[in-house]
């Protein structure tokens, strides 16, 4: 079927099998490999993308559901500066600075989920951040430095970084 949607701020038109997983279409057809498959059953969150600003497990979404929607993958989270330089999202920068990424396989999903969460709940405290992140598994960090990073990212967005 023919689909039209926004992907990382660009209009896209695709002719694809409607029941293919969004994750596969992103990785195989569009060569956006930042979304990872950790489990294939919506448990780990490594394939998280934002659909209309909300985090979704792309391994559970038939691509037909995208028609008319706005998709953001990890490749579209950082912005291009005026000189073409990469401007990281506050969450991405904090994950780098605070050691919130180790092996990195969960990081795209965590960055997208957390960025969306902080947009919706800019004043989320540590306990709330733990709830908001509970759909994204990380096996490396014990989550401590991820939560530290997100607290800092929230603070940066409010104009007040400790970094």
């Amino acid at each position, binding site marked *: 079927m023919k689909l039209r949607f926004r992907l990382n701020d660009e209009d896209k038109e695709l002719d694809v099998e409607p029941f293919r997983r969004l994750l596969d279409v992103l*990785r195989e057809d569009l060569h*956006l*490999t*930042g*979304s*990872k*498959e*950790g*489990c*294939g*059953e919506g*448990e*780990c969150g*490594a394939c998280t993308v934002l659909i209309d600003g909300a985090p979704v497990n792309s391994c559970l979404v038939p691509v037909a559901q995208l028609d008319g929607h706005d998709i953001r*993958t*990890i*490749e579209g*989270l*950082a912005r291009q500066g005026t000189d073409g330089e*990469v401007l*990281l999202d506050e969450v*991405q*920068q904090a*994950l*780098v*600075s*605070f*050691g919130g*990424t*180790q*092996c*990195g*396989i*969960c*990081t*795209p999903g965590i*960055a997208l989920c957390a960025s969306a969460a902080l947009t919706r709940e800019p004043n989320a405290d*540590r*306990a*709330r*951040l*733990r*709830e908001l*992140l*509970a*759909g*994204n*598994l*990380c*096996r*490396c*960090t*014990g*989550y*401590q*430095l*991820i*939560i530290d990073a997100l607290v800092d990212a929230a603070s940066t967005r409010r104009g007040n970084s*400790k*970094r």
Partner: protein
Amino acid sequence: MSKDHEDAPMTIGGSPDRVDGVPKVTGTALYVDDLEAPGAWHGATLRSDVPRGRFVSLTRAADFDWSDVVVVTADDIAGQNVVALIEDDQPSLVPVGGMICHREEALALVAAPTRAAARAALAHLTVVVDALPAVTTLDAALRADVAVHNDDNVLKRLEIHRNDDDIDEILARCAHVIEGTYETGAQEQMYIEPQGILAEWRGETCRVTGSLQCPYYVHKALVMLLGLPDDQVVVTQAVTGGGFGGKEEYPSMIAGHAALLARAAGRPIKLIYDRAEDIAATTKRHPARVHHRLGLDADGQLVAADIDVLLDGGAYVTLSPVVLSRAILHAAGPYRIPHVRIVGRALATNTPPHGAFRGFGAPQTTFAYERQMQKASRALGIDAFELRRKNLLRSGDSTATGQVLTDSVGSDAVLDTLSAALERAAPPAAARLGSLHSPVRRGRGLAFCFHGSGFTGSGEQRLAGRVTVACLPSGDFEIRSSSTDIGQGMLTIFSQIASQALGVPAARIVLSEPSTERVPDSGPTVASRTCMIVGRLVERACLALAEQLRAHAAANRLDATDLATVAAHRVAHAGPLAETCEHESPPGVEWSDETYTGAAYPVFGWAACLVDVAVDEDTREVVVERCIHAVDVGRAIHRRIVEGQIEGGTLQALGWALWEAVPYDDGRVLNPSMTDCIIPTSADAPELETLLVEMPFAHGPHGAKGVGEIPMDGPAAAVAGAIEDALGVACDVVPLLPEVLDVLLVDQPPQETLA
């Protein structure tokens, strides 16, 4: 946040940004399944599905279109049909007529243009097996009614003896004897990236790239399997999404399969496991049963320990002898005990082989000895800290193998640091606490432990790991080592060490791709050795290079404070320059494999962990309300990376203690999915309080020693002790799931079972 100035050398002890941070947060880091491989087909593995039997026949369905499918069997193996490791007893593919020893044995391989097509082809292969009686539990292996390895099912037996000729009488005379049996289950590493390999042939050279910890282990295995000379096998690590030991030995199996398929198909092959296959087929932590008798005098001084360690090794020898070795070398704990007898056995069962997982045998025996110390503390009415202080190893004391500790002994320091932290307020409790119903009972548990850094005994001498640092024409310096970054931060830490030693900024340090065609064998990325052993080689090579460059600067009137410019000048005018360093053990490190005596490890890390729990009396739900971990790391090269290692390991240990069960039925994993085989989420995890203790080790870079594994050792015993404190029932198994606690509470009325 300390941020290094871009022109200055990287500092030691700060927290500069990880060198691999930006690619990872932007999704541009390329893991094996992200690699472009034009024309690649996808592989799949046909497995036996019986725990034991004889492989009678393999047939292809006549009504299936096999034209776009490649099938590989043991007949296609040019070299030896083994996955080379310690004993070379595990086949790559079971041949027709051969013995099947567990349910996940590979019998044949297929490849097709898509994953779906490969799976469809698998479904059209028919296997006939003559099933034989199987051994799938430790008890059955012990009885040996069915012998699946030699006549006693013992894969390996190791013993430690210290003044133990009459240990039974000594124990009989002790004022107190604490006796217990401790069972710990299998644990899945659950790296978030499943295992996978990309293989291709270029002429007669086989090239594989994959998610792996030890490029030279895979290289050795492929050379043997494919019957090729060393230089016709090239193994490269892709960015790897976690390992924790799980990608130490099994990648050799997958790489062999991918290489065989690629040869048969004449095109690149991607063999990427899905989660179900990864959980079912790859290695896990060894299930263990430890029987422990501990004798104390009336004052609480330890007198004797008699310890029996059983590990379930699974169907082949694989790494079990060395896991057993580390298990028994840690079994007496970080205590002064005059009389010790330890007997360890790794038993064969018809389950997929158990293998490397952070801690490598030590968590199992640590659980046992610290549960014993908790029971002794209660039985004798001696405070938990005091009992440890009364018995712990200090500088000048010797371990059960007679190793005299002299350097970097942080035993008192970690306990003191932990008890000082207890005076401070706890952090705000995690969100989960609100879900507890009343009535709630609370308890506290302490665990104290040590962990040997680096390979056991003479292992580091035998490995003789090497690192090369080369001057590039650009004035950059390239570090060539086979150590892999699996998330633990090796790339950043080696950059810091090199930057410091050469006095050049981070931008001047280049880490070579870990590929066997570019880097020397620095030994595997295991055993808490990468920073301490290989990092020290990086430092020595850089210092030797700096010496040569300073001489070059003096001879050519160059500014010796800018070694990058000197290096560029040196290469331009006098040709290539590189330094290679090989591991040299500190003097006096003597070990006997025959008697199991001497210096078991170059040095030990030390840790103390305190856990407070709340237990819901109705639902038996356990919430960790506080977890403090004080760890002596020698020196933290990178503070946040070290904290991240400790916190990640601590949560894996809390998971093992409370939630992470891998049940088997007749040799089959019953929960091969992330939905059923759970690991902790951010909402399950407590706020982790990490306290770094730094007792520098003279032979580590800047004083650093191992940190990767020690956080896995203690927390499970701390959790079990805390639950015991809360409920008054002996908690001698992990994981302590609510249903397990429920049975314990029914079987053991509170208090009566406690000494």
